[in-house]
């Protein structure tokens, strides 16, 4: 399984803070995004937003980064702290 967490505006727009997906056929962040869209088609525009950032196990990664079972993947908008 892969644990996926969402933050801030994205979390509110999706109406979801976390979920788990079976890791079968999910090899990269981009493939995970497609799996999320298949899981919830109404999420397509939010998940395909190209400003969306992604992290694996707390490290920022890009779309081609490999994903493996047991990873925690986070998706979130550009950060605005400080």
């Amino acid at each position, binding site marked *: 399984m892969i644990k996926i*967490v969402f*933050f*801030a*505006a994205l979390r*509110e727009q999706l109406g979801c803070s976390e979920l788990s997906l079976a890791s079968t056929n999910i090899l990269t962040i981009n493939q995970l995004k497609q799996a999320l869209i298949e899981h919830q088609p109404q999420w397509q525009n939010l998940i395909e937003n190209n400003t969306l950032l992604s*992290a694996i196990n*707390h490290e920022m990664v890009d779309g081609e980064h490999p994903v493996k079972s047991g990873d925690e993947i*986070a998706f*979130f*908008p*550009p*950060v*605005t*702290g*400080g």
Partner: protein
Amino acid sequence: MNNEVSIQEDDFSLADEVAFLESDNAIDGAVVTFTGRVRNKNEGLNVTALTLEHYPGMTEKLLAKIITTAKERWDIGRVKVIHRIGRLEIGEQIVFVGVTSQHRQDAFAANEFIMDYLKVKAPFWKKELTENGEKWLDAKSSDNNKAQQWS
């Protein structure tokens, strides 16, 4: 957990933080502190309050990494970074960065570097409560440009 970083709901005392940076630290002659507060106006709208969210775990790691980079780059002594989360009212303190060094140049530069990188790297998000309702803030390109000056 590393005592250089604190993510907390509670307010902090500038005097206590300076005391921590200075205690048993006679080698450092410079103490530079920055405090960020909630402004009453943003983009022309009256702000009532802010809510701050973060990614627990990743935030602490990222801030620790920024501090490590600052220590490699400048000759600095102690560092403390505090960031508050949850609901904050106008005028409340949001963020603190304190850095000590033997001479002032290193502490000034490292403090600004840490703050600039925190702004664009650390996973915090602000939601503003204004006269027109709630709004998640957009990231500013000026903050990215400012952080890039260090690279």
